[in-house]
């Protein structure tokens, strides 16, 4: 990835982040922290990895994304809007009656959503079904599934982990947003999942780890995945809940706090300041 491309992706991530804050703020909703932790992963997936066509959301040859941690959908909505799957203005109707953008992603209602989600732990099994079907059809399409780390507390996830490995689904890649948080606190204090890497390797998956906010590292793991054959792959992407907003990152604000108008404005000021410092000034210098 050259410097310009990296800068473009970082800027895209920042713009997505701003839209996430606006989307959640306008709806006065929560799930801000978990939406912000997946931004770089989604940006890298949609701009660098996945073959999709916003003009033809149901194109058969597309790659699929099962967004298993459905509550973080504001990030996905912001990305899909930016790609042109639907008008960006739709973002401000998130969670409202009759809206295209439901509280959790709904198949058919929103262009670009490949499967409904919201109830945790179910996405990976759906992704396994998709991967089996695509293999049966000799399709070159790939299936990606984005999970939260807390989801692995649901038993059915491990059924899917076993199955994908049994069927050697190398057209399936799972990405885990390892932000260490769940509703009531830290995962390690509630029902510890570690050591994840060893567990998943023991189940027959190819496991890769990276910093989920570092585009260069994401590039490295996805390149490695492209060359891998014979088993499903999983990326443990370490992230920080509320990434980009100091108050959440530093623990001054609970990750599950609802976003008030005041909080939204404060967050946007912070992101704008970051934008000025890292992009607009830089552009002026180079120009």
């Amino acid at each position, binding site marked *: 990835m050259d410097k310009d491309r990296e800068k473009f992706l970082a800027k895209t991530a920042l713009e997505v982040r701003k839209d996430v804050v606006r989307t959640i703020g306008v709806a006065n909703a929560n799930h801000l922290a978990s939406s912000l932790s997946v931004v770089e992963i989604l940006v890298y997936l949609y701009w660098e990895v996945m073959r999709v066509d916003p003009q033809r959301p149901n194109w058969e040859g597309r790659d699929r994304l099962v967004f298993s941690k459905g509550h973080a959908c504001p990030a996905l909505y912001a990305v899909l809007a930016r790609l042109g799957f639907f008008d960006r203005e739709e973002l401000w109707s998130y969670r409202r009656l009759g809206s295209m953008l439901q509280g959790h992603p709904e198949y058919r209602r929103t262009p670009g959503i490949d499967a409904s989600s919201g*109830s945790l732990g179910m996405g990976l*099994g759906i992704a396994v*079904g998709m991967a089996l079907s695509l293999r049966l059809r000799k399709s070159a399409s790939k299936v990606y599934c984005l999970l939260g780390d807390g989801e692995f507390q649901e038993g*059915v996830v491990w059924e899917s982990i076993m*199955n994908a490995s049994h069927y050697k689904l190398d057209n399936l890649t799972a990405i885990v947003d390892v932000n260490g948080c769940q509703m009531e606190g830290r995962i390690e204090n509630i029902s510890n999942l570690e050591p994840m890497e060893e567990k998943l390797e023991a189940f027959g998956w190819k496991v890769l780890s990276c910093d989920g906010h570092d585009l260069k590292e994401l590039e490295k793991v996805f390149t490695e995945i492209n060359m891998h054959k014979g088993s499903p792959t999983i990326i443990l992407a370490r992230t920080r809940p509320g990434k980009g907003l100091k108050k959440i990152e530093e623990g001054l604000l609970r990750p599950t706090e609802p976003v008030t108008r005041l909080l939204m404005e404060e967050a946007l000021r912070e992101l704008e300041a970051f934008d000025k410092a890292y992009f607009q000034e830089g552009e002026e210098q180079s120009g």
Partner: protein
Amino acid sequence: MDKKSSRDGFGKALCELGRLREDVVVVDADVATSTRTEGFRRAFNKRFFNVGIAEQEAVLVASGMALCGELPFVSSFAAFLTTRAYEQIRTCVAMPNLNVKLVGTHGGITVGEDGVTHQMTEDIALMRSLPNMKVFVASDFHSAAVLTLLLGEIQGPAYLRVGREPTPEIYKEDDKDFHPGAAKLLRPGDGVTICACGIMVHEALKAAAILGRQGINAEVLDCYCIKPLAVQQILASIRRTGCCVVAEEHNVIGGLGEAVARVISEEYPVPIRLVGVADRYGQSGTARELQEYYGLTYREIVGASAQVWALRRR
């Protein structure tokens, strides 16, 4: 009389469907021999997936396959498929209205000796309360086969219940006239309307013969489609008879009985009696012993019919 089980009818038709359509896939939770999907496995190995003893995963996999354009059939014991995987069925099949077909074998208490964990008298209630879900119950080998083919034709999620025990033949092989939202008129009459499904259809016919000798001319409907219910057919019948008995191998709560009772009480109230399992669990025993013990025979239908007939609306 020639006796064959409805699960065998399902297994046979599934193979036929596999030959007709390339998009039919079968997802099994390690019970292919019992659910009779083994024939499909032998004929179409590449389109058969045993995901192991994991009903939830089976439904999720089917959901993913349907999203990619396949026509998946998921089959397991009714007791495990509809309860263990209920949330997967609700969230990943019924809600997105996906073309996934669920077939619960070993429905009812006539599973027999395996006992209470393997018997299932709540599946119809669970499935019919899900929006988008269509619900069918087979009454013999042939209707199971035709309904299986019908599942392949209709769009969207559907549940079919079949049974383990060989049962008497009710339909002739050339009868293909089964549709969603319809019931089968097996015996016309004007004394009492008997709506039945599954193994109780045979019992209802037996009861009708006895009632006939007592001067009550019973009309027997096989309500093989519980949802959408054959509302107009049932109403037309009770307008003539003025009374109704419903017989099913299911808890009296939430099954065909309550479905019919709702229609009748809303549209044309007449005396009605429900013959079914009286809100309790089964136990081990032979199929016939259990039918006798839990009151699922022609005798209960005859008794209930005499009662409502005496009170019939004129």
